[in-house]
């Protein structure tokens, strides 16, 4: 229980750093909506982790049944998906045959997430937990489709995606770590939980500053 609490506190601290870095810069009028959505996504991680800390502190486990904290991961990746799908993707892909190759490459993102879900699918948890895990994996996979696509697609017209490649790489890494954390919780592997928690803290802390660097490079 204690390692789960400390892991959540660490990720909460990392996400809070990212959110507090981005909020004054992007959560205001006339700022790029793309960046605002990434910051709000980090805010969802803050809320989700805060809930999980409260749940553990009040003596309830994070595993065994559905708990609202998993919605934090869902919210984060729904914002990431929404920012790429709603804001950026139409600027770099007109749906023509020229970009078909990159759309195919993009499927490696969801495929990787699906593979990472397999240990959970065949793990010892209840059917309800596996179903919640599948929903979380689906949303992460949907976001990763665009993150992978924007990592490789040539950005000939606007140069937007080129500046955000590093951010997209970090977002994919964060998705992979979320899936590994799910596995660690399913198999109650303390070592894997500590390792993923440490890396998640670092990635979620730097994801907004990295995105900010990309957005500033694109706007100048």
């Amino acid at each position: 229980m204690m390692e789960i609490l400390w892991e959540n506190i660490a990720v909460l601290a990392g996400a809070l750093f990212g959110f507090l870095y981005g909020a004054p810069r992007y959560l205001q009028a006339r700022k790029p909506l793309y960046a605002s959505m990434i910051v709000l996504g980090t805010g969802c991680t803050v809320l989700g982790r805060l809930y999980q800390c409260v749940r553990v502190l009040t003596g309830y486990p994070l595993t065994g049944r559905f708990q609202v904290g998993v919605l934090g991961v869902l919210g984060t990746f729904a914002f990431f998906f929404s920012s790429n799908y709603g804001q950026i993707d139409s600027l770099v892909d007109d749906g023509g045959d020229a970009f078909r190759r990159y759309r195919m490459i993009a499927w490696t993102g969801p495929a990787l997430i699906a593979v990472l879900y397999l240990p959970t699918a065949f793990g010892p948890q209840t059917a309800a937990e596996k179903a919640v895990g599948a929903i979380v994996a689906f949303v992460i996979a949907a976001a990763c489709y665009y993150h992978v696509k924007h990592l490789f697609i040539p950005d000939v017209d606007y140069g937007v995606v080129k500046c955000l490649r590093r951010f997209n790489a970090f977002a994919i890494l964060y998705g992979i770590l979320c899936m590994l954390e799910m596995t660690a919780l399913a198999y109650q592997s303390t070592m894997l939980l500590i390792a993923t928690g440490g890396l998640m803290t670092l990635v979620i802390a730097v994801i907004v500053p990295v995105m900010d660097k990309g957005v500033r490079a694109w706007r100048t």
Partner: protein
Amino acid sequence: MENLSAVLLLCVAIPIVPVLILLPDRRSRRFLGFLLVGVGVCFIAAEVNTLLVRLFDGDMMYVTTNITPVSEEILKALPVLFFAWTISDDRETLVSIAFAIGLGFALLENLLILIQNIDSVTVPWAFARGIGAALMHSVSTSLVGMGVSYVRKRRKLFYCGTFSLLVAAIIYHAIFNSLVQSQYRIIGFVLPALVCVPLFEHFHREIRQSAE
């Protein structure tokens, strides 16, 4: 007593209806009208929650910290969504009606909790509950209102954005419910005020900037 929530609903709603008809100002009428909608939504939520508690074998703590935040936030979001879809998707109006729905919801919910715990309620309880629950419900519904404002302008952002903000509102609601039922209840009652101040400061700054 049977149909207690229906009795309380009528006690709150009946005095509001004539005022709603007599008020000359359209904005005030709309705010009061949606406050009444919030009261109605709370009545429906109370019935839904009774079914949910039964479904989860009477595990009240689990249901109130994990399930009712989901059902209540969805129920509160529906009138906002309907308004945005059919009448106006103006952001300022949507946030104001969402706030009214949250306030109306908290009003009836506080009364229901008061009646259920009539022997143990105190003045500090009323004060904390009045501020904490009202702000929590209002802030969480306003969050959804902000996302819903994209309903007609940017369809791609509307679906995912509203879902994400709904998720944020659900978690915020669940944190509040968990804290107020634990030994950290003071933090639970202070939390909504802490969240409300920067959120509304941000919203008013946005309105000022767009007016300029």
